């Protein structure tokens, strides 16, 4: 099992994330991605450069087909760029094997999806434990840490509920807890409010803001809603595979 760097339990959750404020988490250089659909080549990304520093909260925006999902998949080590380099915490990850990618997804990236993607018929706490199943934690330690992050998202009282016994907002909190449990360098949230009503969306976005500000967690959020993007400090807008604007709140 990959278990090279177990953060100890006693370390505060934000220890690693807040450590050196401003260090580069993501650097992308001249990234291209071309899909072949039959005979037609689709240029999803046409030369992207992004640098995201530690503790930034970035919203990636754009219409469907703008390339924002493609960049998410590449950032999440789920898809390879056609050309260009992707450095995650200084490491060029575009050349790694799929097992090494699995390791990086496990230790450095936390995913939050639009559809929550929790395991059915599996309790909240066990869903949160899932990433730790793949890095050799003992079951006691897993349970302990799952509790900690469930508490952080305010769901410790519902830890033994099954996903279908939880509201959409609560399910998304479980998913956020799951993304946090291995103390990743980066959280990738793909339309996390897409399936939620406005009130719950606000709660979830406030939770992200909290995690970003209090815990110093780096968050990259994909959304097509400007209202949601406003919660981030920085908005990057994609169109036709290119970045057309990159602005910060003041």
């Amino acid at each position, binding site marked *: 099992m990959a278990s090279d760097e177990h953060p100890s339990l006693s370390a505060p959750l934000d220890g690693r994330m807040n450590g050196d404020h401003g260090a580069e988490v993501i650097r992308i250089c001249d990234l291209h991605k071309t899909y072949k659909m039959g005979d037609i080549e689709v240029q999803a990304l046409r030369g992207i450069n992004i640098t995201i520093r530690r503790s930034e909260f970035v919203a990636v925006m754009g219409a469907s087909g703008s390339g924002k999902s493609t960049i998410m998949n590449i950032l999440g080590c789920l*898809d390879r760029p056609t050309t260009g380099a992707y450095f995650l915490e200084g490491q060029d990850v575009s050349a790694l094997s799929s*097992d090494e990618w699995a*390791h990086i*997804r496990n230790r450095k990236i936390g*995913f939050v999806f639009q559809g929550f*993607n*929790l395991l059915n018929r599996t309790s909240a706490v066990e869903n949160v434990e*899932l990433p730790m*199943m*793949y890095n050799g934690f003992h079951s006691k330690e897993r349970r302990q840490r799952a509790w900690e992050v469930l508490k952080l998202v305010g769901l410790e009282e519902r830890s033994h509920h099954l996903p279908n016994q939880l509201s959409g907002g609560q399910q998304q909190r479980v998913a956020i807890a799951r993304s946090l449990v291995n103390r990743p360098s980066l959280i990738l949230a793909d339309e996390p409010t897409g399936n939620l009503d406005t009130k719950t969306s606000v709660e979830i976005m406030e939770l992200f803001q909290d995690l970003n500000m209090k815990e110093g967690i780096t968050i990259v959020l994909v959304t097509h809603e400007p209202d949601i993007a406003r919660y981030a400090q920085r908005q990057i807008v994609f169109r036709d595979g290119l970045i057309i604007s990159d602005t910060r709140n003041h």
Partner: protein
Amino acid sequence: MLFMAFRIALRALARNKLRSFLTMLGIIIGVGAVIAMVAIGEGAKKRVQEQIASLGTNLLVILPGTVTLGGARTGSGGRQTLVASDARAIMREIPVVAGASPVVRQVQQVIAGDQNWSTPVQGVAPEFQQIREWQVQEGRFISQADIENTAKVALIGQTVAYNLFGDNDPIGAVIRIKKIPFHVIGILGAKGQSGNGTDQDDVVMVPYTTMMKLVMGVTYIQQIIVAAVSADTTQEANNQIASLLRQRHKLRAGVDDDFMIRNLSDIAEAASNSATVMAMLLGSIASVSLLVGGIGIMNIMLVSVTERTREIGIRMAVGARSRDIMLQFIVEAVVMAASGGVIGILVGIGSSNLIKYLAELPTLIRPEIIAISFLVAGAVGVFFGFYPAKKAANLDPIDALRYE
């Protein structure tokens, strides 16, 4: 990791109890059939072996060699080289020999009162009864004292008893052989016909010493019948008897044996081999159902992989490697196959006992068959779980996460 995969598998199987059970049923029937069929085959084999043993696979018959007189060869037993002390020496000096008895026989007219009957009269030692496993129905067999005293006592076979005495009790009666009166001391149990149709119950037995001195007036014996301690040691007994007799008969190297030794072990081997073939045939027919069970597992695992595509995507997104996914599904298949195997073993044992009592067929369950069936069931799980697991492990996480 393996333990965790095991837990995940148990949970996944528990979610679809009926489906898991029906899938397992293929293996249960397969393993159960293998165990029951092999038990029947082995039982039949054992019965055949016992029947052959009752014919006397551990028996050896020593006959004098042939002799050539003026160009004409006598048949086997033509020479007069075997003596009673050879039989005693074989008994005394060869440990794998359970018993040896001299045999001298001659057909005689036996008279009892106003009845008479022509029958083979056979001179034997007390060991003869044990060697041929011949029951005494009434009275007693020839004793060592009878041998030493050249006692005029006789046992009569069932056929003789019927023909000379009808319904009267022959014990204590007197029969005459060559005008010599013999007291009947026992009636032999029924032995039926021999392999070549001879009525084995048409016989009179007397001490061999009495037979040699008083009836036939000879100093040699016609054969020695020997029982080895078991069928396996027959050949060893054969070799040792040969060298002992050569030594006793003072035969120099290069001189032919003046005796012949015959045994039935070749027949026993052939019969036992054919029983083994039958056991294997039954076993391999049953194995086909195990194969079908395995295909059932593969089928259900493929369905399961498709159904759980999204779960696989989630697991991959949070850091499961291909081999973790692979392990999970293989373990699931193996758990299904192995638990089917365990239940199948119980079913197999139960049904072979049922067959034993209801159909009155002999069955024999050997522990190694149980162990092998269990291992084969597990191997079926690995083999038929491999392809679905590989399919799961090769899924693209992006597609898997998007799968509805």
